[in-house]
């Protein structure tokens, strides 16, 4: 379990840092097209900001913000977005994951494809973030919380 000690320095610095980490993570997810980055890297950074939150403020504080139940639903949601976009492309003619057929109101096919890629990145980002945090919480709270047979 994370040894919980009251250290004001860590708490204040992390309180300042976490919002900027999260904004940077969203930047990384969104700008997968133009700069190195994308769903996975952004999702991991977003997850890391929550892990910093748990380390600095202890598991109980973070329990209020994000519970394990919501995390699994969030992970499934991210993945359902990804495969859902593929399915929509399937239903609108075209093969699975063929973004050219997405019913987006954009002019040219490449732009629709770019938006399809962006949708994929968002789905992966959400999924990876939720999974990173749930793995971290599962492993750290194994001794006390989720003791299983």
């Amino acid at each position, binding site marked *: 379990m994370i040894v919980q000690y009251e250290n004001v320095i860590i708490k204040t610095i992390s309180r300042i840092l976490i919002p900027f980490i999260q904004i940077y993570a969203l930047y990384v997810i969104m700008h997968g097209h133009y700069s190195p980055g994308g769903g996975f890297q952004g999702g991991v950074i977003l997850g890391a900001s929550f892990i910093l939150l748990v380390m600095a403020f202890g598991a109980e504080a973070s329990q209020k913000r994000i519970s394990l139940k919501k995390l699994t639903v969030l992970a499934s949601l991210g993945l359902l977005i990804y495969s859902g976009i593929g399915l929509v492309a399937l239903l609108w003619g075209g093969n699975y994951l063929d973004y050219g057929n997405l019913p987006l109101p954009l002019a040219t096919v490449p732009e629709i494809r770019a938006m399809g890629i962006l949708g994929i990145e968002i789905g992966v980002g959400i999924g990876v973030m939720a999974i*990173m945090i749930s793995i971290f919480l599962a492993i750290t709270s194994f001794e006390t919380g989720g003791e299983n047979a």
Partner: protein
Amino acid sequence: MKIFVLLVVLLTGGLLLAGMEEMPGWGDPSSPPSMHVSPRYIEKTMEETATPNMVTSVLADYRGYDTLGETTVIFAAGVACLLLLRKDDP
């Protein structure tokens, strides 16, 4: 036991070194991987997917299904850790 393992490791290493001759040298632009499939990714990325970052366009569009498999792997790992370590079901 350790000697046996060391022998196996040295043998495999030697075989790998021997199997290295025909491999293209470091960074030579006319190596098969750089000539066969990837030129189309590089030249057609802007035309076909309007995404300057080629890695993202290959990752999400040309070989998008690999990424779906990959995300499923990480999803399986997440649910696996919860299954192994947590007692309560969601």
